[in-house]
């Protein structure tokens, strides 16, 4: 989740412009709007912003949302915008290159009283831009933002496409570079070249003098760089997703406006030859049925409650109207409107990218009203709970193992080819689920047996006293399906195969095989199969179906796990065994 950190003094300056007496303690309560205050010290505050709240990623935009939420001010869901008289013509060729292009001008921004403040401001604007690039822009693929020093530009503007030999001086460079070079050599070019992959025309925003403002989504031109003297800004947002672009533009404008800037619109003649005026500061009118709201929140709301809750969340409650006669008779979906519904009309800021569906308005009202003030309710459907079918079997099995004095352990499912196959001589590589992107050589696949993990555990416990008696009952993955296995290992100077055989007999008796005369037998394993010592390893069959293996661990195998004590153990396929036995209670 993105995190923002800023000085109290900066936020104080913004809020005082709106007549708010700043309180850093009150800010601790901003969390309930959709973020989490991580640190709030004497000078600074750090807030983690939930991924859906791209509208809180800078001091100015957070301040805007906090004014109605924390300070009871009237919400302002719109931006005041005048026309700049400036136009931007988009060439038709952008259609397949970067079709969405919006722009705005913000003048007279109060960037700070001194150099330190101005530097801090520039850093804040750059951070905001980067966070928007990440959250709304999806790393510039959906939207990318360019902020320019308006004083250096000569309107009007054009967006054209060029070939790869086109040259200009990119940001922070002294010489011209071709598009081709930028994409292969400039750090930003290398980072974002994949966004233009397969294209032979490249987007370029230029002014009246044919100077390059920006080569979106890669890099700005050098001469438009924001400087300490910059007070007027030109902002472009380009991309593929109109909503992401629109919200990004509005949020940058909102941040600058919170510092006294006056927003002016730009007339865009887009790639489809349609005229649009951006940014559009008007709020979006949403509709929500009282039925959805009340059923989800289990409560009826008065108009006063709605007004208050929606205002806190930065919107306006407009009123309630009847559903049209033409509405559906029965609702199938949450968004359906049916005859008899009351429709609640709400205005929310256009930059609230996260409002996708009426259900999002339900949450806005729930948060605005307070989660803890909604009352109580309990499930109504009479239902009896039941455990997994296997639960009695595994419970009985665990009881048996613990009765044999074995300590339960848990180990990781992630393992590797050596431990699972080579080191224990079980050759089943083809049934293993393998990772495409492992991060360590120890974890490249999912375990197919539990026993190797137990050997690893004993290896990690070499310094502890003997005997060590451990078991694991857990999931392995064979042929990409979960299976339940059980395994035990006993590292002890005495015991050996006879002890293990005896324990198996106890288990089989306690699992009621004897009671139901279910036959089981042990067949010696062939040499070199599995971790067992020749002549001291066996496959276990119940009703002629293999349910596991038992034996003394071959010292050669122990050595693979850096162990040098006598060990014997078992691997049992519980899913298979469960199918073959009877429940003594049934």
């Amino acid at each position, binding site marked *: 989740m993105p995190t923002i950190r800023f000085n109290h003094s900066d936020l104080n300056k913004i809020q005082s412009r709106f007549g708010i007496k700043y309180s850093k303690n009150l800010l601790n309560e901003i969390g309930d*709007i959709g973020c989490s205050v991580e640190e709030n010290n004497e000078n600074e505050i750090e807030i983690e912003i939930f991924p859906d709240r791209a509208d809180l990623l800078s001091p100015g935009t957070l301040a805007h949302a906090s004014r109605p939420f924390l300070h009871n001010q009237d919400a302002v869901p719109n931006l005041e915008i005048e026309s700049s008289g400036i136009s931007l013509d988009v060439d038709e060729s952008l259609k397949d290159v970067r079709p969405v292009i919006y722009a705005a001008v913000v003048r007279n921004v109060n960037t700070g009283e001194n150099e330190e403040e101005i530097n801090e401001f520039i850093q804040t604007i750059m951070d905001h831009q980067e966070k928007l690039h990440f959250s709304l822009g999806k790393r510039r693929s959906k939207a990318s933002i360019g902020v320019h020093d308006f004083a250096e530009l000569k309107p009007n503007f054009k967006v054209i496409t060029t070939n790869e030999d086109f040259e200009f001086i990119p940001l922070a460079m002294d010489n011209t570079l071709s598009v081709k070079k930028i994409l292969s050599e400039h750090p930003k070019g290398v980072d974002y070249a994949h966004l233009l992959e397969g294209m032979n025309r490249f987007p370029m925003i230029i002014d009246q003098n044919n100077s390059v403002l920006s080569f979106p989504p890669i890099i700005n031109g050098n001469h438009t760089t924001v400087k300490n003297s910059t007070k007027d800004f030109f902002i472009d947002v380009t991309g593929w997703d109109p909503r992401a672009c629109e919200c990004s533009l509005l949020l940058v404008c909102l941040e600058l406006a919170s510092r006294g800037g006056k927003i002016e619109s730009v007339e865009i003649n887009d790639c489809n030859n349609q005229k649009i005026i951006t940014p559009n500061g008007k709020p979006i009118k949403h509709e929500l049925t009282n039925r959805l709201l009340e059923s989800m929140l289990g409560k009826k709301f008065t108009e006063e409650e709605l007004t208050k809750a929606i205002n806190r969340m930065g919107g306006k409650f407009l009123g309630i109207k009847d559903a049209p006669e033409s509405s559906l008779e029965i609702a199938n979906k949450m968004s359906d409107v049916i005859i008899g519904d009351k429709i609640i009309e709400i205005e929310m800021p256009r930059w609230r990218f996260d409002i996708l569906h009426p259900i999002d308005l339900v949450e806005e009202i729930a948060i605005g009203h307070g989660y803890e003030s*909604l009352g109580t309710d*309990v499930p109504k459907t009479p239902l009896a709970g039941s*455990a997994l079918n296997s639960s009695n079997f595994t419970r009985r099995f665990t009881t048996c193992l613990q009765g044999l004095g074995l300590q339960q*352990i*848990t180990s990781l499912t992630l393992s590797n080819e050596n431990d699972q196959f080579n080191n224990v001589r079980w050759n089943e590589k083809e049934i293993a689920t393998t990772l495409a*992107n492992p991060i360590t050589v120890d974890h490249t696949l999912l375990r197919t047996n539990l026993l190797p993990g137990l050997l690893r555990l004993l290896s990690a416990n070499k310094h502890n006293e003997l005997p060590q008696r451990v078991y694991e009952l857990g999931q392995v993955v064979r042929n990409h399906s979960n299976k339940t296995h059980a395994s035990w290992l006993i590292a002890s100077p005495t015991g050996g195969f006879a002890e293990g055989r005896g324990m198996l007999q106890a288990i089989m008796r306690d699992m009621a095989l004897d009671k139901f005369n279910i036959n089981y037998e042990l067949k010696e394993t062939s040499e070199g199969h599995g971790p067992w010592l020749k002549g001291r390893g066996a496959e276990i069959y119940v009703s002629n179906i293999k349910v596991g293996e038992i034996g003394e661990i071959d010292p050669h195998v122990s050595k693979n796990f850096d162990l040098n004590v006598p060990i014997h153990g078992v691997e049992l396929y519980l899913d298979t065994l469960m199918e073959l036995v009877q429940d003594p209670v049934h």
Partner: protein
Amino acid sequence: MAVELNNPEKRMLKIMQSENDRDWTVSELCDKTKFDDQAIIVGAGQGLVEKELATGTENEKTFWKLGKEGVKANSNGLLEMNLWEWVLSSEDTSMKSLQSSNIVEKHEVGIGVGLLKSLGVTLEGGCFIPPENKENITSILLERKGFLEFINSSEQGVLESELNNDMLNHFKNRKNLLTYTDEITRTWKITKKGLNISPKTLEEKMMIAEITPELLQGDSWKNAEFKPYDVSLESNTPLSGKPHPMQSLIERIRSIFLEMGFTEIDGDYVQTAGWNMDALFIPQDHPAREMQDTFYLSNPESIPIDDEILTQWKSIHEHGGDTGSLGWGGGFSKDIAQKGLLRTHTTVNTVKYISENPNKPCRVFGIGRVFRNESIDRTHLPEFHQIEGIIMEPGANLPMLVTTLKTFYEKMGYPEVRVRPAYFPYTEPSLEIEVKWRGQWLELGGAGIFRPEVTEPLGCSSPVLAWGMGLERLAMLVLGLDDIRQLYISDLEWLKSQPVL
């Protein structure tokens, strides 16, 4: 009044009855009772004193033995005696002659001369001159020799009271000639009451330490005494078979769900990106879906999903389908949806369960492992447990979710629960659960109502309330662990020391 006596007490009293009016020492009693261990006599004596059958006296006594120099003097002769004999027998008694002789070691010359002078020998013109009365000196020296021999005669040393006081004082002042030890000596004397105990009472009974089957098969144990043990002493702790504490915690949580009428479900670790993420309306460009957060598979690299479902997800993601949602915009890849991965949350079980039972009201839960592409360190593991519960029924709502959560956490032992807004891509409204744990608020899970983009394509028309939590964080808190690895790569001594939860 019957007096209860144990065997050693009986035997000791019997001995003391044989000669009344005398003090018995430990060694005398050992001798007579044939007990090898003095501690038995001391114990029995104490018992008899408590029962007023004997009186006990404790004396601290000093025993003197020869010290290092004393042993030497006893075998080689006293230094002053050797010098005196030399003075008497030498023609040249000058200091020079003494130094060249081998009568004394060099470092002893000074002390020796001092001793001679104290006996009355004078040093005139560099020569030792004996006094008139030579016999007096010789007898003093013989007395000294005799004293040392007397002390040497007893191996355990000679009691101070048996020694000549003047001699003792003389040798005490000389370095390393004598050493001493203080010993407490106990003596007992029978009382009148002790004398009156009848011989019958003093008959000893058989004393049983370990009870054997052979013993119990006979009758001898019936009149025997069972040796009392010191019950306060610790024994060896046996190796015991116990559950892993995290498994116990899982069992407790399972019980709570079952008590609350929830049915348990499970599912495979191997899933598709489609069911794990797309079905949950997690956009395909969501950061959690990237390679550095999720384990994708090389086998199986992809798993086919029915095209009808894929098409539905595609339209929902791109423009909301017919749910009335705007969708995420952008494109949706069916190939990405069919990629194989290790499930990143147990919610994939839940959503699959709903897709199979879209309109059957239910309360189900699952506890299982999930996987994230994390390096192992003190607080991270690439796999951990998630616990998840859902309620689906017509009319299910947010207060019902909050009330159920509060009941759930109260049953876990955390009656103070509060909820705050939160964000998950697949729930709306979403909330975060905090419980009061030993005085502090602790985030212990997330919850919410599944979004219509999740439930409606599955044909589910009732709200689905869901919550989940991680298990390991709680396990670490309960067990006081600061390293999560201890749970999966356990030290067996640590596991042994853990309580059964």
